[in-house]
């Protein structure tokens, strides 16, 4: 794997009486597309602002290429930010906006001119040089904000929920755009969002956060398939999270029925949480299921149906390309590979994180 570009060591930060980050450690590799994912107020924006230099941590260090930049002011850092609401200077034209950083660095006129047209081409907004930001649509402003940041050739681009204000279609287009940009530029992206779909689509690595604590770090697939706790499981996609008891290795008891699984090492007769993704629940003939239930609700979702099944006083969410009529009896069967066992939360904070849901 590539070298570590940025490292956050033991970062603490509080605003007034509210502790936002508590002893947080995180590193970002070069060329990585890393996403901080979590609900609002989880501390992800604070991390970004600490990296950008807009906030200084109460304690801890920010390392950049193994150099301590904790106390370096924002303008001396080799990274640039794309702000949530773009923050394009309203009194400057698009060209002036893009040239802002370059002029500060006293680059030559011709260099700046080249850079502007290169950047505008890159974001597909040729010919917008002399317009003012308020004459642009949200998506266009967004792309200008990116252009303004990348002309400075930062080692790392910080993006603070950059797609939050765009509508759905535009958001999807921009996701592809961002991936393309990242590949073309070959720099590190730190992306902050609360949208799990964005995170899963674009990232190399996702950091799931809640209440100032990192819940899980991993590839999108890791995070999705093997959430380490109920918070992650619930936050990433839809999940059936059911309390259960680990009878012994590879056997878990849920809702008074024994399910085969592949997990080991949880001890014997230990309470655990069990995560089963809706698409992993197979609805079969009642007699073929491990347990049986009744379909209470069916919604057509385009590519699949989403159904609610009441079985042993638990409401299962099931996604399937086949539909069963409401009130029909069905059997529930789950492939052992698709059963994900998680420890019950132990620390007070983790518990808080779960209860908060």
């Amino acid at each position, binding site marked *: 794997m590539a070298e570590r570009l940025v490292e956050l060591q033991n970062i603490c930060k509080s605003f007034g009486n509210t502790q936002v980050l508590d002893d947080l450690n995180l590193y970002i590799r070069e060329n990585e597309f890393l996403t901080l994912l979590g609900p609002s107020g989880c501390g992800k924006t604070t991390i970004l602002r600490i990296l950008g*230099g807009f906030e200084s941590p109460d304690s801890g260090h920010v390392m950049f290429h193994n150099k301590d930049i904790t106390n370096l002011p924002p303008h001396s850092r080799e990274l640039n*930010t794309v702000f949530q609401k773009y923050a394009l200077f309203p*009194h400057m034209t698009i060209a002036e906006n893009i040239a*802002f*950083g370059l002029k*500060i660095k006293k680059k030559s006129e011709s260099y700046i001119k080249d850079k502007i047209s290169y950047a505008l081409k890159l974001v597909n907004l040729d010919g917008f040089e002399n317009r003012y930001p308020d004459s642009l649509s949200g998506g266009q402003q967004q792309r200008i904000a990116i252009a*303004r940041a990348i002309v400075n050739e930062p080692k790392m681009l910080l993006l603070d929920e950059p797609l939050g204000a765009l509508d759905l279609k535009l958001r999807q287009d921009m996701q592809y755009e961002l991936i393309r940009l990242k590949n073309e530029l070959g720099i590190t992206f730190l992306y902050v969002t609360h949208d799990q779909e964005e995170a899963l689509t674009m990232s190399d690595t996702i950091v799931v956060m809640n209440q100032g604590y990192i819940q899980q770090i991993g590839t999108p697939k890791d995070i999705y398939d093997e959430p380490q706790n109920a918070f992650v499981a619930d936050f990433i996609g839809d999940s059936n999270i059911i309390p259960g008891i680990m009878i012994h290795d590879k056997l878990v008891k849920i809702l008074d029925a024994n399910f085969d699984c592949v997990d080991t090492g949880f001890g014997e007769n230990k309470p655990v949480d069990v995560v089963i993704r809706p698409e992993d629940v197979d609805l079969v003939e009642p007699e073929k299921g491990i347990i049986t239930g009744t379909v209470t609700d069916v919604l057509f979702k385009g590519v699949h149906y989403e159904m609610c099944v009441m079985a042993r006083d638990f409401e299962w969410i099931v996604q399937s390309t086949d539909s069963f009529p409401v009130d029909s009896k069905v059997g529930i069967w789950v492939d052992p590979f698709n059963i994900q066992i998680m420890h019950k939360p132990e620390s007070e904070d983790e518990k808080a994180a779960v209860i908060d849901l």
Partner: protein
Amino acid sequence: MNKSKTTLLAAPYAVWSAGFVVIPLFIILFYGLTSENGGLSTGILQAAADPINQKALALSIVFSLIATLICLLIAYPLSLVLSALSGKAGRENTTFFTMLFILPMWINSLIRTIAWQNILERTGVINRFLNFAGLPELNIINKPPAIILGMVYDFLPFMILPIYNSILKINKDYIDAAKDLGANNIQTIFKVTLPLSLPGIIAGITMVFVPSLTTFVISDILGGGKILLVGNIVEQLFTLDNDWHAGSALSCVLMVFIIINILISELSERKDLSENSKGGIEL
């Protein structure tokens, strides 16, 4: 609510301002355009051509421009300091700072200006202190610098408040963005904060320039009667000469300058009608 009915709420004000703002201005114009025997006159042109008036007007313009510039140079950095301080401590401080600059106005401006005599006089506070310290005396009382100082003193709050307000209104993201793009604090101020607070600056300039241009009190109190500003002449034409026609004519000349000033501030305001930039305070 019924739109036309709601609009009627502005009717009392419309009537009031027609009666007490618009008509009185026409009365001045009427006096300016007529002579004592009732005929039309070229009083306005005469007033503009009179060398005494010209000199007073020129002096007034120079003094008030200098005073306005000094106010701006004092008020802008101050507003930056204030907004930095209020930014840290939350919104409540804004009220406190605003009050801090409004409250001196609750003590009558005349008496405060008179107090400057005591401070600046030959035997005044400053010179006693300088004598005590063995330094040369400061002798500006009854001279132009004292008048300019009086103008700066009296009208400084009118420069501070709109600028402070407009700086407070600047979205913090713009400042962060500028720093993020490599601008240091000074560069950020000149390239981002300053242009974005322009409405406040222009409002402040108007609020200081016009009263400085037309004051007669400050030159009376701190000028030792040796310096006639255009306001002094207008005042004397009304109260000493009892010559309303000449006084109105000179007022009309004065208004030309005021109108120019208003037009400039109108132009800058076109951009956003909603902006509360003119000396309005926000608590």
